[in-house]
């Protein structure tokens, strides 16, 4: 059973060399048309993601991983090709979207829950659950600005993972906070896996990818250059990085 089917997806961004955002700039530059850099983020991607799979997506910076996630989520429209999704989906591309330092922990989580689309009736209970998971019950009515960065991340993570949809798209979101909390996150992911959730994870943390993913997709220059078992694909990716980049850059990734 396929959860996400990607067929022949192309996405090209036109990046203006100098962007004219005001009308005056446009008028002044009318005889000097804006020149564009064409950047082909996705160059014909075909991909099937099976239901219940935990798929890791790896590749160098700018290889199109995040663009693929956004196209899957429906945030970006592909220039050509189709994406079919079976089941409910949540896209967690950033933790704590819409968090505001001036609101309390509960107010923030409630707003985030609404953004994530929790059913309204279940929301209050799930909000409490998220705060409990983040171990921030003591700060429920404190303003977010009084919390540490790590605590905010924990809160965002806990709320996001409460979304409980069939498919989850994660961009560099796996384990946050201190070692103890990270351990809890790891348990949570094992639990999601057991419950048959489909998860697509974009990550540069090869160790996490090896640990969690049932299969791995390697991306390069907007194309899928390999699909298979984690160990083999990580090797493939490292070869790819070694081929074209100096080793120093590989360390950055």
């Amino acid at each position, binding site marked *: 059973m396929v959860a996400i089917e990607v067929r022949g997806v192309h996405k090209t*961004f036109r990046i203006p060399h100098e962007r004219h955002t005001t009308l005056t700039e446009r008028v002044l530059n009318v005889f000097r048309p804006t020149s564009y850099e064409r950047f082909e983020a996705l160059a014909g991607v075909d991909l099937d993601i099976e239901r219940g799979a935990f798929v890791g997506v790896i590749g160098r910076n700018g290889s199109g991983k995040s663009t693929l996630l956004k196209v899957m989520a429906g*945030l970006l429209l592909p220039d050509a090709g189709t994406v079919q999704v079976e089941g409910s989906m949540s896209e967690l591309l950033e933790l704590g979207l819409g968090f*505001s330092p001036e609101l309390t922990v509960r107010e923030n989580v409630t707003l985030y829950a609404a953004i994530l689309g929790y059913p309204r009736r279940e929301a209050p209970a799930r909000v409490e659950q998220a705060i409990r998971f983040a171990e921030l019950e003591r700060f429920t009515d404190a303003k977010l600005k009084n919390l540490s960065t790590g605590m905010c991340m924990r809160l965002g993570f806990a709320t996001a993972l409460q979304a409980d949809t069939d498919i989850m798209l994660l961009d560099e979101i796996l384990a946050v906070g201190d070692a103890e909390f990270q351990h809890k996150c790891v348990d949570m992911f094992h639990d999601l896996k057991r419950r048959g959730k489909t998860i697509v994870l974009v990550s540069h943390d090869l160790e996490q990818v090896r640990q969690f993913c049932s299969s791995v997709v390697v991306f390069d220059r907007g194309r899928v250059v390999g699909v298979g078992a984690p160990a083999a694909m990580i090797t493939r990716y490292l070869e790819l990085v070694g081929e074209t980049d100096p080793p120093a850059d590989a360390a950055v990734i």
Partner: protein
Amino acid sequence: MTSSSSLASEGATAGGRVTPARSMRSSRRRGYGWLVLQFALKDFKIRYTHSVLGYLWSVINPVIFFVLYYVVFSVFMRFEIPKYPAFLLLGVVLWNFFSEGSAHGTGALLARGDILSKMVLPREVVVYSALLSAALTFVINLVVLLAVLWLTGSPLKPPAICFLLLLVDLAALTLGITLLLSPIYVRFRDIGYLWGIVLQAGFWITPILYSELMVPAKWRWIVWCNPIGRIITDSRRVIVYGLWPGGRGLLITTLYSLGICVVGALVFRKLQGRVVEYL
């Protein structure tokens, strides 16, 4: 992996298709009303943090301007308008909702760009919530208005029922303009400055401080062409003077506002798909 041969056609919507099982998605979200409300409440709360008087400012501000206008136009300039306090306050309150709502709403897509570029939400949600936030202030102001009506000895009469329709017109007009401007504003920031000027000019061209009857007959068409002017004029008739409005005039006002709302909605629908790429 098979490579597709079709070429990228940047900027065109044709060809590309994302079908994330819309029905599934909507089963996850049964209506966005709750989200609209949450956004609006957040706006409203944040606006008054760090102020001692808090929500009171949403009353104090219009009241201070009301007193100022009253002194200048009624005491200094001797406008001979019956029931001028209620007349003036109603005009100011209606105008404030229109100007605040449209100004905030126009910037809403950009203000919430961080969320819109990371989550799949109907983009109009942020526009609705900006207007709802302005509506909260508006409702508080209406309560003050009722108090003033009561204090100045002009209680509501049956024609006041027409005010409900005029409120619908006001909401439709404000929503229509906001839906029209907000996606354009994302691409051209000029719209923000331009609309600011239109609002300032509109404040003087619209009969808010004065009566439409003070406008020479040959210029009165300007008032009738102005949808917010029509709404304010009719509202005064039914609320302040307790008179029934002209049926034809009211119909034109309603069709006018709804027409603008429909145009705004169509433009928004056309432009919203690629808004994210300009945020």
